C-alpha cells in the first residue's frame, strides 16, 4: 500500500471531567482506514466506541473533552482546525448516520426540506436544485415515488424507510468518510439485511471510506474489511476481519465470539464472567484482568501495550 490512509487516528484521548472523577472514555486509541475501506469498531456498551466517533467530529457532549492525539483526514489534522472550517467538514467530508432514525430526523419538517437543507448549506444549491437532487438521492437509496415522498413527514414512514432517508442525507454531499453508528440496531432482521446491502452498494459506487460502529459481530463479519475490538476505552485487538475472526488472540475477543448464540448449535453458552471496570478509578495493569480466564505475572502491575503479532493483526495482552 503506497496510498496514504484516508483517516489516520493517533493516540486519541477523550476524557469526561465529572464531579465524581475523570472518566477515560477514549484512552489512547490509534487506527487508520485506507480509502474505500471499512473499519468496524466493536465492543459492548460503555466501551467508548461511540465517543471515539464523536471525537472525530469534535462533537463530544459535555463534560467530555478531547485531551490529546491527532485525527488526520487526508492531510488535515481535524483536532487543530478552527471551528469554522470544522463545520464545513461535518456533513460535507465526513457524514454520520445514527442508530435511531426517528430521533435524528426533525419531526416537523418534510423529508424533502431536510435533505435539501444539507445541499443548500454545503453546496450553495438553490431551493429548486436542492429539491431535485433530493428526489434523485431518494431513488438512489431505494425509495419509490421519490417526488411524492419528499412531501412526507418522518412519522409517515417506517423505520427502514427513515434509515434510508438518513442515508440519503448523509450521502447528499458525497462524503469521503461515512461514520455509521449502529445503523441497523433498531431495525427488524429482514430490513437490517436490506439496509446493509444498500450501504455496501453505495459505498462501492462512490468509493467511500466507512467507519462502522456495531456491537453485532455478525454484521461486522459480513460488512467490514478491518476490525478493532474496544474494551474500557482501549483497543484490545485489531486486524483484518478474516484474521481476527479466524484466530482471535485477546481473551475478550475470544469470549465475545464464543458467547454468541449461533443457529443450528444448541449447547450451553460460555460466558465472560464479571462486568466492565469502573473507568473512574485509577487502574494499573490490564483493564481486562478481573474477567480474564488466564492472567499471567505482569498483568496486575503493568499495562500491556498493543503490539503486532502477525501482519495485519495486533493485540494488547501480556500472553503474546
Amino acid at each position, binding site marked *: 500500500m503506497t496510498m496514504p490512509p484516508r483517516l489516520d487516528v493517533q493516540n486519541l484521548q477523550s476524557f469526561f471531567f465529572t464531579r465524581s472523577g475523570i472518566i477515560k472514555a477514549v484512552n489512547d486509541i490509534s487506527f487508520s482506514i485506507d480509502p474505500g475501506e471499512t473499519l468496524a469498531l466493536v465492543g459492548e456498551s460503555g466501551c467508548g466506541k461511540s465517543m471515539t466517533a464523536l471525537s472525530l467530529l469534535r462533537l463530544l457532549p459535555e463534560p467530555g473533552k478531547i485531551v490529546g492525539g491527532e485525527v488526520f483526514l487526508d492531510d488535515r489534522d481535524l483536532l487543530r482546525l478552527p471551528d469554522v472550517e470544522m463545520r464545513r467538514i461535518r456533513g460535507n467530508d465526513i457524514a454520520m448516520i445514527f442508530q435511531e432514525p426517528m430521533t435524528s430526523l426533525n419531526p416537523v419538517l418534510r423529508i424533502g426540506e431536510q435533505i435539501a437543507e444539507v445541499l443548500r448549506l454545503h453546496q450553495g444549491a438553490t431551493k429548486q436544485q436542492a429539491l431535485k437532487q433530493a428526489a434523485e438521492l431518494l431513488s438512489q437509496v431505494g425509495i419509490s415515488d421519490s417526488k411524492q415522498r419528499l412531501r412526507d413527514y418522518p412519522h409517515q414512514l417506517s423505520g427502514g424507510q427513515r434509515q434510508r432517508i438518513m442515508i440519503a442525507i448523509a450521502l447528499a454531499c458525497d462524503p469521503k468518510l461515512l461514520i455509521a453508528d449502529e445503523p441497523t440496531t433498531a431495525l427488524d432482521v429482514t430490513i437490517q439485511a436490506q439496509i446493509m446491502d444498500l450501504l455496501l452498494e453505495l459505498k462501492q459506487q462512490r468509493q467511500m471510506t466507512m467507519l462502522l460502529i456495531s456491537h453485532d459481530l455478525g454484521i461486522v463479519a459480513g*460488512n467490514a474489511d478491518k476490525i478493532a475490538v474496544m474494551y474500557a476505552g482501549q483497543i484490545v485487538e485489531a486486524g483484518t476481519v478474516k484474521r481476527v475472526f479466524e484466530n482471535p488472540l485477546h481473551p475478550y475477543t475470544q469470549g465475545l465470539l464464543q458467547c*454468541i448464540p449461533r443457529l443450528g448449535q444448541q449447547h450451553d453458552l460460555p460466558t465472560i464472567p464479571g462486568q466492565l471496570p469502573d473507568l473512574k478509578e485509577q487502574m494499573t495493569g490490564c483493564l481486562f484482568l478481573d474477567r480474564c480466564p488466564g492472567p499471567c505475572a505482569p498483568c496486575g502491575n503493568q499495562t500491556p501495550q498493543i503490539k503486532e503479532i502477525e501482519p495485519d493483526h495486533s493485540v494488547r495482552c501480556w500472553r503474546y
Partner: protein
Amino acid sequence: MLEILILSLLEVKNLRKSFRMRDSLGRTSGQLVAVNDISFHVKQGETLGLVGESGCGKSTTGKLILQLLQADAGQVFFSGDELTGLTSRQMRPYRRRMQMIFQDPFSSLNPRMTVGAILREPLLIHRLAPASQLRDRVIELLEKVGLTAEHEQRFPHEFSGGQRQRVGIARALAVEPQLIIADEPVSALDLSVQAQILNLLQGFQKDHGLSYIFIAHDLAVIEHVSDRIAVMYLGKIVELTNAKELYKHPQHPYTEALLNAVPTPDPDHPRPAALSGEIPSPVNPPSGCYFHPRCPYADSICRQQEPQLRETDMDHLVACHHTDQVGRYRLT
C-alpha cells in the same frame, strides 16, 4: 383433545385481539388485528419460542395469556382451567402461577423502591412468607440470580442493565410460578451479559421444571433456548414445530427468509440475503396470504386464497400453499 389438555400447562385456542384505530379527531379510522386466530399449547417444563418482527403480535399474545388484555375471541386454559372471562379477583390465584419478565430492565423496576422492597412486594401480596422469614427469603432470591445480600438495600439506578434484569428475574421467581412469559428478556443487554442471563433462565428451568414462553425477534437466541418455536407474521402463526426441525427444514418462506437474514459471525459465510419489501401495515393487510407481496414463491393462488395452518409432517404446522418448494433459497 382431552389428552392435550391434561398434558399441557397452557392451552391457547383461536385467540384473537384487535384494536380500534382513531384519527386525530378521535374518529374510528380502522381496525388493527394484532392477534388473528392463533392456537398453541405449552407443556410442563417446556420452552415455546414466539418469534417475529415488530408488529407481528408476539407481545400482545403474551399479554392476552396473562389476561392483561381482554381477547375479542378465543380461550386460554391454564392447567385445564379457563382463564378467559375471569374477574380480576378470580384471576388472582393464577397470577401467582404465571409471571412475566420484561425487555427493559430500566423501566420495569420502580426507581423509588430498594431491590429488597421490590422483591418483598410479591411475597407480601401473595402471603408467601411470614414477616420473620421475609428477609431470608429475599436474600435467598438474590443469591439465586447471582446477586448478594448487600444488594438488598440498593436502588435500581445503582445497577447495570444485566444486574437489573437479574432483579426482574428474581421478582418473577419470588412467587414460584409454573409459567414465565419472558418478553425480549435479553434484547437490551450486551452480548456477554446476554449469555449470562440465558444460562440463568435455562438453569432455573432444569431445577424447577418451569415452562417458558420466550418472546424475541432474534432467531438465533430463540433457537438456542426453545424446544418448540412458533413463527408469527402480521398476527398469525405461519409455522410451528420443534427447534431443530425449524432450523433444518423450514417449510414457510418467511421462516426461511428469517433464517437467511441472521448475520453469521464468520467472514467466509455468505452475506445475509435481504428479503424484498417492507412489513405491511396490520391495519390494511394484503389479500390472500399476508406474506405474498414479499414471497419469492408466490403465485396467483397466494394472492387470492389465505392458506390455513395444517400439519405437513409429524408436529410440523405450516400455513403456506407451496410448502414443498420452500428451501430452494436457503443459505447455508
